[in-house]
């Protein structure tokens, strides 16, 4: 009598309802030859019946699944002796509840259950049986009622198609709002934790302090446990790494886009473009160890050979590898924008005797510039949010420096180190991660909004 069996039965009932609804519509019309008397095609009457059978029962099932445990637990606990309940703390209570549930499902391991728990578990099981029977009865009744309703509504003049289409539209709206609501949920959860953080640490210190050392002393005499939350070194580190990345990705991506869009013969384009886009498909963790194990030692060796002191975990190595990762973003977006410049502009320029390079520099590039800027901004927000490469290659030391040869740390790296491992969720150290996440979210959101705005403005120009 599991919920999945019930789900399956509901789906089967929907199929049956479809069939019945369709048959009924044909019957009402007076046979297959006269179905043009119906307002809609017979299948729509079938869908209408299926929706009436399926939607209410599925909704019921959903609510039931969400609420059953809570209600049953509350009922079971109400049966427990009052003096036992009074002595329990919140933690002990939840332990007791899980004991009861585990015993009811026969999963209680290792411990001999107390008499109380056994009684409660038996009670729980009995309640569960009642609930199940109620559920099945309700589902059956609702399905029958839905079918009867649809059956009775099926007349030749009934606008089944319009009804079905409006129900489908509502379903589509529901599904599309899932993504939006999820974003909102993430934002709110980060926001609330950040507010808790800013109650412990003033936001001025967080945004303008230059000292980042999030370890909080467990003992008063502990060394190096100052607990400073000035995020400036993280911001500058993020900016430095992103800047190095863009320094590599923008020229390389842009010039390869110009080549692919304007100069490359069709044969070259057909294989070069996918190859370039493979770069976007490499997992960032692979880029990470490429940066940490190949590029960083190479950079250090190169630095030594010319007398420069380059750290093993340098901003330069992380930035360069991140730049390589971002090249396909820049080139792919720029190429699309360049291709979107109307051929008539090229023709107009050529017809005046302009060469190809003059046409690109003076006509195509200015026309495509807003879109290219939009693409670059999207790439910047990607660079700022990138985590794996910097975790592996940029280091953890929060140095406030603009020297690319030194080790820096970034916002994303700090979030990772603050939240991985065993952490208590009420210390400023852990909550700082949420404040950093919020900052990151706001910055990339602003960048994306600007980028999308620019891209849209550009599109209007030619459509």
């Amino acid at each position, binding site marked *: 009598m599991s919920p999945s069996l019930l789900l399956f039965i509901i789906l089967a009932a929907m199929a049956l309802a479809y069939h019945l609804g369709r048959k009924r519509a044909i019957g009402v019309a007076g046979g297959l030859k006269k179905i043009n008397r119906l307002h809609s095609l017979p299948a729509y009457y079938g869908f209408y019946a299926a929706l009436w059978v399926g939607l209410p029962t599925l909704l019921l099932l959903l609510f039931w699944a969400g609420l059953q445990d809570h209600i049953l637990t509350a009922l079971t606990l109400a049966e427990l002796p009052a003096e036992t309940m009074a002595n329990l703390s919140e933690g002990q209570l939840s332990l007791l509840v899980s004991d009861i549930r585990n015993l009811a499902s026969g999963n209680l391991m290792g411990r001999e259950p107390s008499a109380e728990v056994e009684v409660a578990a038996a009670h729980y099981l009995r309640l569960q049986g009642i609930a199940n029977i109620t559920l099945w009865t309700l589902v059956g009744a609702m399905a029958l009622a839905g079918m009867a309703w649809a059956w009775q509504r099926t007349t030749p003049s009934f606008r089944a198609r319009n009804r079905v289409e409006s129900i489908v539209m509502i379903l589509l709206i529901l599904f599309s709002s899932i993504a939006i609501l999820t974003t909102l949920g993430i934002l709110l959860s980060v926001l609330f934790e950040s507010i808790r953080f800013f109650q412990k640490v003033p936001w001025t210190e967080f945004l303008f302090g230059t000292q980042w050392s999030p370890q909080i002393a467990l003992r008063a005499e502990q060394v190096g446990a100052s607990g400073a939350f000035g995020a400036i070194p993280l911001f500058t580190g993020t900016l430095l790494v992103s800047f190095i990345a863009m320094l590599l990705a923008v020229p390389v991506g842009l010039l390869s886009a110009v080549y692919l869009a304007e100069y490359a*013969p*069709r044969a070259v384009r057909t294989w070069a473009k996918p190859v370039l886009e493979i770069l976007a498909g490499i997992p960032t963790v692979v880029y990470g160890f490429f940066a940490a194990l190949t590029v960083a030692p190479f950079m250090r060796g190169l630095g030594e050979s010319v007398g420069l002191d380059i750290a093993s975990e340098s901003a330069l190595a992380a930035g360069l590898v991140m730049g390589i990762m971002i090249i396909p973003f820049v080139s792919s977006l720029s190429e699309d924008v360049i291709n979107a410049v*109307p051929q*008539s*502009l*090229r*023709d*107009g*320029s*050529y*017809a*005046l*005797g*302009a*060469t190809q390079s*003059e046409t690109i520099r*003076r*006509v195509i590039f*200015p*026309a495509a510039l807003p879109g290219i800027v939009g693409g670059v901004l999207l790439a910047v927000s990607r660079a700022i949010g990138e985590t794996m490469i910097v975790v592996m290659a940029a280091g953890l030391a929060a140095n406030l420096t603009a020297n690319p040869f030194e080790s820096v740390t970034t916002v994303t790296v700090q979030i990772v180190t603050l939240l991985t491992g065993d952490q208590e969720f009420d210390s400023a150290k852990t909550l700082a991660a949420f404040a950093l996440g919020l900052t990151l979210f706001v910055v990339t959101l602003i960048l994306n909004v600007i980028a999308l705005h620019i891209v849209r403005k550009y599109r209007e*120009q030619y459509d």
Partner: protein
Amino acid sequence: MTMIVEASAVKPANLKADHLAQDQSTTTTVGEISSPNPRMVCRDINVWYNNNHAIKHVSLDIGKNEVIAMIGPSGCGKSTFLRCLNRMNDTIPAARVEGSITLDGQEIQDKGIDVVPLRARVGMVFQKPNPFPKSIYENIAYGPRIHGLTNSRAELDELVETSLQRAGLWKEVKDRLDAPGTGLSGGQQQRLCIARTLSVSPEVILMDEPCSALDPIATAIIEDLIDELRQQYTIAIVTHSMQQAARVSQRTAYFHLGDLVEVGTTDDIFNQPKHKLTEDYITGRFG
């Protein structure tokens, strides 16, 4: 479909022997292809798009200070022929052009010929107005800048002004030269494109259905302009409107499925066409 069969099968009886009769033309052109005072001379032009033979053995002169109109049903090759005259077909990878085209006696078809000065001498105005997304001033100044025609800002200002004046646009835009060219009306944009073409002092102006995207009033203004420009320039215009061809041109060439069927003075073509296809087209029986 019956007309298509006829086009290649019919050999008109009243053929005039011309000096190209030895060429293996599928259809021999009726009428006088040569001009007493030619600016451009095209002989035996063939164009292929991949394997599609778009222009077949076309020979035609374009005389100095005349407006020659090219008419014919859609897909007849008139625009393709026009694009041969400034080698714009080079920009289409699939296109292949054969034959001889001279401008003032100089061959332009050789691969060694630089298209940059050629296109400055043979300008082109397109079907859809295509101003650059720049200011009105910059739209006109673009050509002179890339060709280095002026030495100072004052000279450039003057060139922009005279170009706009010749295109009859100066009075309308002189107070807003910094406004974007794309913000003008369709007819103004097309005159801006004509002014842009005039700015590099071409000898020949090719116009590919320059009024097809414009309303009747804007069309009338452009047609008057074409008539004025004839004093200084040679103009070849492709048009779908036979009334327009009759109004603006001195000579008319009728194309059909890649063949140049008939050439003659505009009066003759419209009043006493010699070839049956020409007659059918201009009397509106097909096209």
